[in-house]
């Protein structure tokens, strides 16, 4: 029989020591009872957070100018969503992992046109609005350059936008139907009708909140609320949750990378962090086959603490 060199980080010698009684069912039952009780105690003492969802109605009533400015950014296509790129549109190449344009390759599989989906279609759903209907027809018939001219002039004047007496007011001339669109969409939002219009564009039954969530995220209201709850990206972001709860603490390493250079300053931070985490996950998966990494346990000798009783009873080494 050919002898093979013993690899201490891969092989084990057959156990020739003794055995002791072991009641696996009893152990499992006790563990389940203890964990159940611990869960019960933690639930009674600490409960769980449940901050109500923000609605576009809430947002537009709390900060109508912020909402109206966001609506304008959807119409003039300067919002984050309008300029996002894949999977929503082709406005940007998106992030790159070295030479790899992963998002762009996949394409706009969840198409979002902010002008159509966030402004025009919701406005079209409003009944009995003769002025708005006329303005929608004017928009529809206008050339691209005319629309751009209206939007450019209105956007310049919007720096002084106010919301007074229930009306969005911007002093601007030759801006076509844009003032009516922004004002009517704001009024629609304040009644709650826009919340509904955004989720029902694909039918009566829906569980897809892509449109209202993108719209909300384009404004500053949601981000300000999150900042107050210590949930911003530079506050270790999405691993946390509202209130003093542990949140997704297991995402600490993923969130950590966003806090340090080069990730914290890179335009490709998201895909870079994902790349790093994927690579680390693969390394973790294949630890048993990676020389060096699989040697650390033996070299650090922490196993002697873990198997303290065993080594106290032996004279190995």
């Amino acid at each position, binding site marked *: 029989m050919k002898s093979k060199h013993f690899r201490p980080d891969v092989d084990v010698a057959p156990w020739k020591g003794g055995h002791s009684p072991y009641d696996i069912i009893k152990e499992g039952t006790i563990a389940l009872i203890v964990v159940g009780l611990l869960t019960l105690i933690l639930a009674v003492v600490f409960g769980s957070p449940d901050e109500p969802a923000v609605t576009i109605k809430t947002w537009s009533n709390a900060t109508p100018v912020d909402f109206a400015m966001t609506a304008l950014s959807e119409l003039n296509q300067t919002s984050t969503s309008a300029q996002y790129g*894949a999977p929503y549109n082709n406005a940007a190449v998106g992030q790159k992992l070295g030479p790899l344009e*992963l998002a762009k390759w996949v394409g706009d599989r969840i198409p979002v046109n902010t002008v159509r989906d966030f402004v025009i279609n919701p406005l079209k759903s409003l009944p009995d609005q003769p002025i708005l209907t006329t303005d929608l027809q004017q928009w529809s018939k206008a050339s691209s350059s005319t629309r751009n001219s209206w939007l450019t002039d209105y956007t310049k004047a919007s720096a002084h936008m106010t919301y007074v007496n229930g009306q969005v007011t911007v002093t601007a001339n030759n801006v076509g139907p844009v003032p009516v669109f922004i004002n009517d969409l704001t009024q629609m939002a304040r009644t709650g009708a826009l919340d509904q219009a955004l989720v029902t564009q694909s039918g009566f039954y829906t569980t897809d909140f892509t449109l209202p969530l993108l719209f909300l995220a384009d404004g500053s209201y949601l981000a300000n609320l999150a900042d107050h709850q210590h949930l911003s990206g530079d506050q270790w972001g999405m691993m946390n949750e509202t209130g003093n709860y542990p949140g997704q603490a297991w995402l600490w390493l993923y969130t950590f990378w966003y806090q340090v250079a080069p990730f914290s300053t890179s335009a490709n931070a998201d895909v870079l962090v994902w790349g790093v985490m994927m690579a680390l996950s693969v390394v973790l998966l294949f630890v048993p086959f990676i020389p060096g990494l699989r040697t650390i346990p033996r070299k650090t000798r922490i196993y002697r603490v873990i198997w303290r009783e065993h080594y106290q009873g032996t004279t190995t080494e």
Partner: protein
Amino acid sequence: MSYTEIERQWTTRLRRRFVHLLPPEKLLPDTQPTYVSSWIYVFGVTTLSALVVVIASGSLLAIRGPQWWHTSSVGHFVNSLHLWSVEIFFFAMVVHLWGKYFMAAWRGGRALTWMTGVVTFLTSIAAAFTGYVSQTNFDSQWISTQAKDGINATGAGAYFNVLNMGQMLMWHIVLLPLAAIVLTGLHVLLVRVKGVVPPFEENAKVNA
């Protein structure tokens, strides 16, 4: 039906193979090697127990649907049970993982046991994440709108839309728990087949 025919049946062969791999005394052992005596072993069974509580509390939440816990104090309490069992589950699993690393628990042909454990860990992270984004509250709004950028940047967001609550809820209550349970079952069976890794015995020799 002849004896030979019975012997050739898929069922007979599968049973024989299974019993050979995992005889009853291995599946439900009544003794263990004396080295299996350390606080670290608590965390494996704690992880399993927490998973049972996670599944049980999640099943209770499922009975009345995803909105119930916002309007009912009983529902909110069940949600609290679900949350804290998840926290215990991850705490125990991470300690279990680090413990197994420093025990080099892949030794002796146990690499697949390690690998199923790692995949279960990663699957559990995805399961928890989909739970956070399908809570239908402020947390789910904020976490999903933040997380979309990372997933979209990889191209996966085109198929795994974190802003689609229905899709996330289905992944959370069906696909990922199913994967986690199957992987956990496989992991535990592998532990039973291979046994618990023994301590380092330096200067030992094996024959091939």
